């Protein structure tokens, strides 16, 4: 395949990935990695390197908007980054020693899980009860603006959330994705941080987590300029457009369709991994 054709296909695919990703809340890597490996026959190690770069682009791009609104909790972000940066580097170091077919199977399983998490109705479990000693010590409790004024929230089960974040970081470094679905579990379900705060804070953290493993990938030659270029440009343009239409559209139906697509890709990845085709 010529450089021009390859660039055009990847650019179009990445644009679509960024667009749908930002509309449904799933990261671009979820589409980018199957596109590169299954459709274009790119080695999964290159796909991981390209994907992590797109994670940083979308994280920094959208975090810039969120942070200004004052919803992001920078302390929670910084505190949990202690776990995610260490584990992301561990994941990035380990990934090259793993057989590509194992990586494909793990990736497929994470995809299935992400698809399920996307359509499950989320329950807001945040409350303002007295929180534990750890949350007080690390000053994690905070406030955020809502339509009814500034609202307070308390952070719970800090240690459990920290451990879950460690796991999310390993997966992120291993597969080159943002592992947003796992971060949701840590922040929404375990630590009981309100949705708005946890979504924006996890998005904010993703860039730092991804940067740590991206440097490891770069040193190893996994970030190839010919692939990273169309992926980065495509995803960022798509995500920017997506965030602009998000305000006007209802995304419930789109989420179901996208979950079906992701499930199909997941099964393909698992099948190809198990049959040794990847």
């Amino acid at each position, binding site marked *: *395949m*010529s*450089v*021009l054709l*390859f*660039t055009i296909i990847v650019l179009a695919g990445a644009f679509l990935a960024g667009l749908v990703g930002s509309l449904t809340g799933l990261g671009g890597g979820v589409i980018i990695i199957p596109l590169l490996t299954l459709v274009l*026959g*790119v*080695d999964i*190690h*290159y796909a991981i390197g390209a994907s992590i*770069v797109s994670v*940083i*682009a979308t*994280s*920094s*791009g959208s*975090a*810039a*908007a*969120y*942070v*200004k609104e*004052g919803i*992001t909790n*920078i*302390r929670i972000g*910084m*505190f949990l980054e*202690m776990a995610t*940066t260490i584990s992301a*580097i561990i994941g*990035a*170091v380990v990934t090259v020693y793993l057989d590509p077919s194992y990586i494909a199977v793990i990736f497929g399983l994470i995809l299935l899980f992400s698809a399920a998490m996307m359509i499950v109705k989320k329950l807001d479990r945040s409350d303002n009860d007295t929180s534990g000693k750890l949350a007080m010590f*690390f*000053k994690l409790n905070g*406030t955020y603006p809502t339509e009814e004024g500034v609202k307070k929230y308390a952070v719970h089960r800090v240690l459990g959330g920290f451990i879950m974040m460690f796991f999310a970081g390993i997966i992120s470094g291993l597969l080159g994705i943002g592992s947003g679905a796992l971060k949701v579990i840590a922040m929404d379900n375990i630590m009981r941080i309100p949705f708005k705060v946890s979504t924006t804070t996890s998005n904010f953290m993703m*860039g*730092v987590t991804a*940067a*740590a*493993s*991206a*440097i*490891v990938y*770069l*040193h*190893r*030659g*996994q*970030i*190839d*300029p*010919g*692939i990273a*270029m*169309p992926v*980065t*440009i495509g995803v*960022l343009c798509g995500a920017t457009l997506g965030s602009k239409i998000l305000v006007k559209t209802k995304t419930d139906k789109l989420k179901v369709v996208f979950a079906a697509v992701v499930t199909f890709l997941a099964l393909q990845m698992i099948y190809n991994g198990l049959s040794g085709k990847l």
Partner: protein
Amino acid sequence: MSSDKRNFFADRDIQVILGTLLRVGVIASMSVVMIGGLLYLFSDHAVLIDYRNFNPDKSGFSSIPAILIGLKDLDSKAIIQFGTLLLIFTPVARVVFSIFSFLIERDYLYVLIGLFVLSIILYSLSDKLVG
């Protein structure tokens, strides 16, 4: 109450600056990647590529010194990789900025936490991690 309010406003200022920092980083790196990408397409558009097998030595620009040397020669791939580096360092810059803002707030616990996160990232900069 009054100290609460003051902290709230200090936090708001910091968040606005942080948002701007992230945006500038993304725009700068995207521009560099696009310039490199156009040069790359202009010179190499008909070249045949094969990414089927991972070869660590293929990209050629896999360390910061190599990228900077390539940049001096205006190598299109080195320009793309430099843009990628700018993108990678945008979140790192925001960690550095957060450390300073915690220092101004005299929140030394979070200065330490920030330094810890920064040192992990800086450790990954040494290529000891890649065997």
